[in-house]
């Protein structure tokens, strides 16, 4: 399976995908509000809905990365409350056509709760919603991200890929 958008191809279990040449630690944050809704953002690059998250920068911890990316991508300041898992599927690759980078998934996903802020679209996210678990099926979510949501919703965590 692959998906080509805006110079970026997401390969998943695709035997014809190019070999990975890059490994970058990234963090996600699954924020749950008091009514049990999950904070989701619609990515401008792929149009799909995802948890907030991104690449860990030098000098920060993975949980600091998760909190920073969440605030940048959703307008919500959150705090970490738990740990969902480590996701490192070598068959999930992101190919960047501009420079030939083929990045292998390596994501550390935390659980969190909101402290302040309101969902706000921004340069990276075209929309930000609180999504009830029963409404998730109406959202276009990549299967690798849906797996993380399902691990949370079914209580099958922490995950150690």
């Amino acid at each position, binding site marked *: 399976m692959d998906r080509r958008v805006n110079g970026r191809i997401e390969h998943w279990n695709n035997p014809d995908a190019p*070999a*990975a*040449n*890059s*490994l970058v*630690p990234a963090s996600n944050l699954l924020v749950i509000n008091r009514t049990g809704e999950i904070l989701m953002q619609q990515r401008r690059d792929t149009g799909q809905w995802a948890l907030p998250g991104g690449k*860990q920068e*030098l*000098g*920060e*911890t*993975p*949980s*600091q990365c998760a*909190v920073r990316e969440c605030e940048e991508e959703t307008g919500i300041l959150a*705090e*970490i409350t*738990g*740990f969902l*898992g*480590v996701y*490192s*599927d*070598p068959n999930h690759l992101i190919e960047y056509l501009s420079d030939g980078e083929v990045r*292998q998934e*390596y994501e*550390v996903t*935390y659980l969190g709760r909101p402290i302040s802020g309101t969902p706000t679209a921004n340069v990276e996210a075209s929309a930000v919603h609180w999504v009830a678990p029963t409404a998730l099926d109406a959202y276009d979510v990549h299967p690798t991200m849906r797996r993380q949501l399902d691990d949370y919703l079914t209580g099958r965590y*922490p995950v*150690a*890929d």
Partner: protein
Amino acid sequence: MARIDWHDDPAAPPVNSLVPAAAAFVERDGKILLIQRSDNGKWSMPGGTMEAGESLTACVVRETLEETGIHIQCTGLVGVFTDPLHRVEYDNGEVRQQFAIVYRATYLAGEPTCSPESPRVEWVLNTGVLDLDMDPSQRVRFAWAIQRPDDVRIDPP
């Protein structure tokens, strides 16, 4: 390759590398699997950095076999261990920010076998592990794994 561990030291060189790494806390009959590292002479868990094409658990299984001769199976997580103020400098110029996922693992097969990276490989009674000469970052990992078997450690905020 020699390494220097810098801990919260203003003289430390700037970080230029951040790589996914994993280590294994392998327990068998009340003993823990440790290696003595050739690069700094200290004791540690087996482990290493992830390579393209493998998952992180595949990485830790491979590194443990390479460094100890022991086949393991991952059974859970000890936690996320990271400290941006702990930098590891290698003599090729890499200055790596310390960051590892530590797994719990069980013994499957094999006998302790030394390697160029690990001149000593031993099963150590869990009551004696924290007395060994080790980097402070390793002591934090062993202490958590031994004392808090039911909690997954998250890096401090």
